[in-house]
C-alpha cells in the first residue's frame, strides 16, 4: 500500500523528530508503532496522513487510499447527535447515507444510539462513536494515535477486540501508535519499535487468530512477543 523512505521532519527551531524513517505498509495488516514519548511516533502518523508537511524523504502510495484518523480523545462534537458525529466525513463529502451510519454504529455495538448526545455517553461509548466515525467513510487505511490510551484496561481489551473484528470484516489497513507493549503484542501483525526519530526494530507477534481473545492473551506467542518487544525497547533506551 505504502512505501516510505528516509522521512525527515523537524518542528520549527527544534531538533529532528523524524530522522530517516523507512516504513512499508501492506494491504490489510495492522502495524503498531511503539516507543517512548517523544520518539516521533505521533509525528510520523501526522506526516503520513498529510497533517504535517513532509520536509525530506519520499512517500510512495501504490494507490492513494481513503484514510481516516482516530485520536486518543474521542474528539466528538458535543453539539451534534451520535449519528451526526458519525456522519461527519460523509457530511463534508456531501454523501450522507443513513444506512451507512447505522451500519457503522452496529459495527461498534452502538445500534440505536443515533439520537443520543455525546454528553450522555460513557468514555468507552464515546471512543466507539469515534471509531464508527472513522469507519463511516469506509476507509482503506486507518491511522490511530494512541486510540485507547485514555481508557481503563477492561475497556481497552474490548476496544482491541473490536478493532480486530472490524479488520476481519473489512479490507482495512491500520497503523497505530501505542505505548502499551501488551496492546502492541496483542493487536499488531507487525510491531515497529521507534527510537530517536527512526524505526530501529521490527517484531512479528504471530498470534493464532483462530483462538479466542483470552486464549490469545494467554498464549506462548503472546508472552514471547511481550518479552521480545520489551527487550527491543530496552535496547533502544540503553
Amino acid at each position, binding site marked *: 500500500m505504502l512505501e516510505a523512505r528516509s522521512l525527515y521532519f523537524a518542528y520549527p527551531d527544534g531538533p529532528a523528530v523524524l530522522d530517516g524513517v523507512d516504513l512499508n505498509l501492506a494491504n490489510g495488516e495492522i502495524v503498531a508503532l511503539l516507543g517512548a514519548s517523544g520518539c516521533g511516533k505521533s509525528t510520523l502518523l501526522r506526516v503520513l*496522513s*498529510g*497533517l504535517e508537511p513532509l520536509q525530506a524523504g519520499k512517500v510512495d502510495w501504490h494507490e492513494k487510499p481513503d*484514510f*481516516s*484518523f482516530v*485520536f486518543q*480523545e474521542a*474528539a466528538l*462534537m*458535543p*453539539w*451534534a*447527535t451520535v449519528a451526526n458525529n458519525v456522519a*461527519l*466525513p460523509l*457530511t*463534508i*463529502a456531501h454523501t450522507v447515507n443513513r444506512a451507512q451510519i447505522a451500519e457503522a454504529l452496529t459495527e461498534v455495538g452502538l445500534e440505536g444510539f443515533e439520537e443520543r*448526545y455525546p*454528553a450522555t455517553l460513557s468514555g468507552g461509548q464515546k471512543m466507539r462513536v469515534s471509531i464508527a466515525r472513522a469507519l463511516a*467513510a469506509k476507509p482503506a487505511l486507518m491511522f490511530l494515535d494512541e486510540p485507547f490510551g485514555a481508557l481503563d484496561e477492561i475497556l481497552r481489551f474490548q476496544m482491541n477486540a473490536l478493532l480486530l473484528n472490524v479488520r476481519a470484516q473489512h479490507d482495512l489497513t491500520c497503523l497505530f501508535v501505542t505505548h502499551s507493549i501488551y496492546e502492541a503484542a496483542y493487536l499488531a501483525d507487525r510491531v515497529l519499535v521507534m527510537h530517536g526519530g527512526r524505526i530501529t526494530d521490527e517484531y512479528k507477534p504471530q498470534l493464532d487468530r483462530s483462538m479466542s481473545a483470552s486464549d490469545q492473551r494467554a498464549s506462548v506467542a503472546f508472552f514471547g512477543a511481550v518479552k521480545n518487544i520489551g527487550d527491543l525497547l530496552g535496547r533502544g533506551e540503553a
Partner: protein
Amino acid sequence: MKKFLLPLIALVVVLLTWHFYVIWAEVPKFVLPGPGAVFGALVDGAPSLFASAIITLKITLYALFAAAFSGVLLALLFSISRSFEMTVYPFAVVLQVTPVVAIAPLVLIWVGIDNVDQAQIIIAWLVAFFPILANMSAGLRSVDRNLNDLFVLYKASRWQRFWLLLWPTAMPYLLASLKVSGGLALIGGVVAEFVAGSGGSSGLAWRIIEAGNRLQMEKMFAGLLLLAVIGMGIFYGFSALERLVLRNRR
C-alpha cells in the same frame, strides 16, 4: 424550588426591615420613602413609567443587537487574519477602558442634543461590544485541535469548517457574553441619558432625573426598580436561552 424560595425570603426580609425602619426612625419621605410609598408611586406613575421602560428596553436591545453583530463580525475577521487582529485589537481595548461617562458628552455633541436616543444606542453599543468581541474571539480560538485536524483530513471547505466546527464551538462563549453585555448595554443607555440631562430623551433615566429634580423620591425608587427589573429580565432571559441552546451539551 429552593433556588427561587431563598432569594424570595431574603427579599421579603429586606422589604419588611426597610418598611419598619422608615416608620421607627421617622425618616422623612424626601430622604427615604418606605416600600409602600414606592409601590404607590409605581402604580400612580404607571403610564409614563412603563412607556419610558419600553423605550429604555428598546434602546438596550437595539444596542445589544448591534454589539452582537459587530462583535461577532470583528471576531470572525480576527480569526481569519492575525495581522488584522494585531492592528485593530488595541483600539478596541481603548474603547473598552475609556470610561463611558467621559465619552458620552462627545457623542451627544456629535449626534446633536435632539437625538439623545441615537447617542444612547451608540454609547450602549460601545460598552456592550467589547465583551462580545473578546469572548467570541476566545471561542473561535478554542476549537478542538483533533476535530480541526479531522476537518483538514476530510478536506472540508472554509464554509463547512465555519458552520460545522467554528460556529458551534464559539456558541457557548457568545451566549455567555450576551448575558454580560446585556447588562452593560442597559448601563450605557442610562449613562447617555443622564449625561444628556434633558432634551429629547424620555427613557427611564430621564424619569429618574425628573423625579429627583422634584424631590419625588418614591418615583425615583420606582424608576430604579423598573431599571433593575429590565436588567434582571435581560440577564435571566439570556440565561434561559443559553440553557435551551446548550441543553444537549451537558
